């Protein structure tokens, strides 16, 4: 029983981390229709910047702001410089570009920051909480992570559902030409979409790094499970991303706790395939109903 509780709670914290990453993917997908493989590397890069700041004596929160701010710029920069030229080409090209950015950024980080392990401080405690005599396998920092992810999700849902900006972002992603005819500055929207997504990506990088080890490849495992979570939820839905993330987090936790961690990848595969067989566009995605 205690173990089940432990697995559930640690699965939740881990799921929140997948969710954070998935949110960034969803944001970029919704606003530019690109699956961004560079998301992890971008988050890694800004986390390193935050780490430099912390090492220079900044407070965690100041470093966090620095990371988010530099994420904003990095996202905008990447969209303008390398994504823009391929946006109108074949569908797969932007994906390959993000793959290239991913590889290049990771190598650049190794060159600039070195390939060693570094530790990234956490703003809250890393010791599990206790309720009476029962140990809860969740740390104050874990709660912070979950809270941050929920706030981000709500902000994104609100952005897309209730704001004009959200509508413009989506319209730009779906049909640039028509959007431009309706006065939407599509170029700016795409840049903004990337910038915002990079901010969320930076946040996810920081959340993952907090109280953990950081090295240029530390986001790699997240890319896969974050992507799986986003697809599971339906790439169009922020709430889906969070639910997908938590589902994957919990599933992996149970599977590795009760069956062994070598089955984790398989479990993710089976869950994803099972869901997609029933709902080809994820739990909360909408497949095209009318084809003719």
């Amino acid at each position, binding site marked *: 029983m205690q173990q089940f509780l432990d697995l559930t709670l640690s699965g939740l914290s881990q799921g929140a981390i997948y969710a954070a990453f998935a949110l960034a993917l969803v944001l970029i997908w919704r606003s530019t229709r690109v699956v961004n493989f560079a998301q992890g590397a971008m988050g890694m890069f800004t986390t390193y910047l935050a780490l430099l700041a912390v090492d220079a004596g900044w407070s965690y929160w100041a470093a966090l702001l620095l990371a988010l701010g530099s994420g904003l710029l990095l996202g905008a920069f990447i969209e303008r410089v390398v994504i823009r030229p391929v946006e109108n080409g074949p569908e797969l090209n932007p994906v390959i570009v993000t793959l290239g950015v991913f590889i290049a950024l990771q190598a650049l980080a190794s060159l600039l920051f070195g390939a060693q392990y570094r530790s990234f401080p956490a703003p809250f405690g890393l010791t599990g909480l206790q309720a009476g005599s029962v140990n809860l396998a969740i740390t104050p920092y874990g709660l912070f992570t979950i809270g941050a992810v929920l706030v981000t999700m709500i902000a994104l849902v609100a952005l897309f559902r209730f704001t004009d900006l959200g509508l413009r972002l989506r319209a730009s992603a779906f049909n640039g030409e028509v959007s431009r005819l309706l006065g939407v500055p599509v170029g700016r929207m795409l840049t903004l979409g990337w910038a915002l997504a990079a901010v969320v990506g930076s946040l996810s990088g920081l959340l993952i790094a907090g109280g953990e080890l950081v*090295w240029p490849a530390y986001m790699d495992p997240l890319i896969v499970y974050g992507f799986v979570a986003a697809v599971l939820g339906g790439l169009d839905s922020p709430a889906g991303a969070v639910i997908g993330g938590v589902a994957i987090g919990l599933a992996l936790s149970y599977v590795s706790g009760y069956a*062994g961690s070598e089955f984790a990848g398989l479990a993710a595969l089976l869950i994803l395939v099972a869901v997609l067989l029933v709902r080809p566009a994820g739990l909360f995605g909408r497949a095209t109903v009318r084809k003719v």
Partner: protein
Amino acid sequence: MVLAGCGAGGRSEDPGGASDVGVTPTSIKVGAHFPLTGVAAPGYSEIPTGTRAYFDWVNANGGVNGRQIEYIFRDDAYTPTQTTQVVNELVLRDQVFAVTGGLGTATHGAVLDFLNSEGVPDLFASSGSLLWNQPEQNPMTFGWQPDYEVEGKILGQYIAQTYPNARVGLLLQDDDFGRDGEVGVRRTLNTQIVSVARYTSGATDITPQVSQLQAQGADLVIGFTVPSYTARSQLAAQQLNYRPQWAYSNVGSDPTLVGGLLQRLSQGQSGPNPLEGVLTTKYLPGPEETNDPWVQLFSQVWAAHGDGGPLTSFRIYGMSEAYTFVQALQAAGPAPTRQGLVDAVERQGGGPDGFRGPAYPPFRYGPDSHAGMAGVAVARLQGGSTVPLTPVRLTDNGDAPITDAPAQERPAPPPQGIPTVVPTGS
């Protein structure tokens, strides 16, 4: 057919023939593969920098038999397919005389067959796998560090003797490292084991594994974990409020690295080094042991030929391996051949009078054994350093008994810091 005439042009001479590929009167070419990029790069990419620094030191002092050691190491990103490619490159294009210190079980395992079939000496693989000790099948390959089984046996025996009532849990990396370690531990501690948890390398979170150990009531956990997972296991335990006695394999217990990392994480919370009191094993001095004459030598070497970074245990490891390699080269005589090098290691490398250097235990090399060091000392992490609890204990794979090594056996470094092995006739 036009091609027939020029057909033989590209072929090199028969491998393993005359003295020899990669050797000139003034130089000798040596290759290695390491993960310099990617997941395994942190830490491991430092090893060849240590090796290179030591070779440079030797070269600056005239080289070996007047030959400068030309050391080429290439990145395999820790993937076997790439190892194959870079080792092909080393052997076929760079025409190295020998390979030394190739890192990783799966990676180096991928080139085992190739190196042996090409007749390239494959000395001192950087991994404690049992694969390197197959003299029949792989006559050119030698291990170097104590294998994980030997380490597990000695650690297990100490725990059985010191904590006879402990309920032992094993936290194992799910590969040869964890498996060989488990085999060793079970040879001396089998009945006390109550739980075994395995994680796959690459897993982001090992809380479930640690939680399993906790649930099954282990109060002493032996971890065969790499450094990053040692740190993660500590974090997970903290999250679970789980406080067993910890013991870690030498691989993952670097107090400076892991302790330092953990300490920075718990910044803001007062507390001792989180690894304080942890059991581990030891076969090389650590960089923090500044009184050790070998560490002093290596500091000098690193100051002279290093890249400016700190002297880490990975670099000491690399230098120590290089030291053994220089010994082997000296033993191979003034006109080294590939076969001659292998023969020399078999002939002169093993036993208390063999290649001795910074490592505490002797090697097991001989005509019938290509296994590396014969044992380890059990130690405790205290005040940021590893304090030996036992003398160096020696054993071999299988049921071989465990014995204490004679005290004060390790020699002091030679004056120039360069070994002086004299080849004996074969």
